[in-house]
């Protein structure tokens, strides 16, 4: 038996489990999610109710996650929100279905969600903050309207 200092150092990557040959993604997982999206989309169409699907458990299944992303496709709108890190809102090719990805300052993934809505709430601006906005706008307009004062040349 080797002594402690005789054991050779072996540097392994973040995954200490030996990589197995890649297997096919589980279609059933993705199908179940698509069914849920369909149901919630129908509810939005008939009742106007927004909803969210949390994909945190799917993050640990990268192949299935990619398959879902590929199936949903990409729409026209992509938005980046700077808020305690970054959040990326990506429209999919399915109307009213969006992907929202939350990351922290170091780009660590915090959460993945599917939002079923006309516009995700994260992208909406706050109507109740308009009075403050008007006050701020007024102050800036006043600053522009005030003519600059130049020192007299004597």
């Amino acid at each position, binding site marked *: *038996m*080797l*002594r*402690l200092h005789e*054991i050779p150092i*072996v540097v*392994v990557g*973040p*995954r*200490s*489990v*030996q990589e197995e040959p890649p297997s096919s993604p589980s279609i059933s997982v993705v199908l179940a999610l698509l069914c849920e999206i369909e149901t919630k989309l129908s509810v939005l169409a008939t009742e106007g109710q927004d*909803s*969210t*699907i*949390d994909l*945190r458990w799917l*993050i*640990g299944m*990268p192949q299935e996650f990619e398959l879902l992303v590929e199936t949903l496709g990409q729409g026209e709108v992509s938005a980046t*929100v700077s*808020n*305690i*890190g970054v*959040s990326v809102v990506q429209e999919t090719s399915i109307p009213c279905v969006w992907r*929202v990805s*939350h990351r*922290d*300052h*170091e*780009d*660590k*993934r*915090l*959460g993945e*969600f599917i939002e079923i809505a006309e516009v995700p*709430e*994260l992208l909406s601006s*706050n109507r109740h*903050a308009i009075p403050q906005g008007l006050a701020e706008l007024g102050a800036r307009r006043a600053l522009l309207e005030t003519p600059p004062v130049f020192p007299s040349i004597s």
Partner: protein
Amino acid sequence: MSNQQTFLEALEERGVSRRSFMKFCAITASSLALAGTHARLFAAALASAPKPTVIWLSFQQCTGCSESILRSFGPALSVENLILNVISLDYHETLQVAAGDQAEKCRKDAMQAAHGSYVLIIDGSIPANDKEFWACIAGNSALAHLQEAVNGAGLVIALGTCAAFGGVPAALPNPSNAYGYTDLLVDTKLVVNPKMEHKNLIEVPMVPGSNPPKPVPFVNISGCPPMATVITSTIALYLTKVKDLLDGKITIDDLLKVLDRYNATTNPMGILDYLYRPKPFYGDRGDPVVHTDCPRFPHWEKQEFAKSYGDEGARQGYCLLNLGCRGPQARNSCTRLGWNTDPNDGGLFKNSPTHAGHNCLGCSEPNFWDTGFDGGRERFRQGFYSVQK
């Protein structure tokens, strides 16, 4: 800053935007396993919840729980520590500048001002009975301090295994007669350790003014130390409910209907396991969550076990069960959420004791110091010392 501010107002005053708050709510609701509709209710309720006063009492402890909660792996303001930036931490012996009579006055004033609604965090075990005065603060026993504080609390959080179940100080032979909070309450239904003496301890505190009398809710967040995410999410969840409960707008039954996924208990939180720990983080009875979330679990499934610490199998990620690992008996979030996660791989890498190569000690379970190596004690010693041969 006035404590009548709402949580969202306090955040906005610190320059945290509404969108940042929404992000925090989404992540926290996700960690609490709240479904879509409940997550939205959670966000709306938290926005209007009052900025909480927190009283933190430390007893027989090592300060590890404070270190876990108050250190942040990220920048000063992050989703993880957002809530800690807006609580009014009115008393914390390790952090506060005040000392002596001034500190005690601050504590009493804060407790009076927020009577019935402050969050009381306790860490460390409490000596009782003939050893009651083994821990004293400002001339009074720790037990007396605790009794005074719980009587006006809105929520009691027993933070860490010492506060929840006795922890290190309660390990055999328990020289200080140390108790965890649960075993101090004179109600045999709540007892965790039936072998301990449960006479002349503290009375179950009742929510002030409640009619019929409702016990002050309490939560055990065990772990040595506990995980920061668990404490912040628990406080956030409490905030969404306390105002409505105290205002009488909802009853405990209403709360339980909202969270009808979880078993009802006598505790208004409604989402606690049989050891009064939040189920979203500790699983349910019979769930070996540390084991099933462990990165070495695939090797357990293949019956591949390390024979000694640092051997080739251990380095390839083989299961550490034969070295005394308590993963199958432990329930915690460490293997799922991870400590000191690597930001460079998208959060897939979850650091935990087993990932680092050491077996789980079951630190979130009662009496783990005494039973943690039972049956595995020899395996643990052999596994360690065999490397030296």
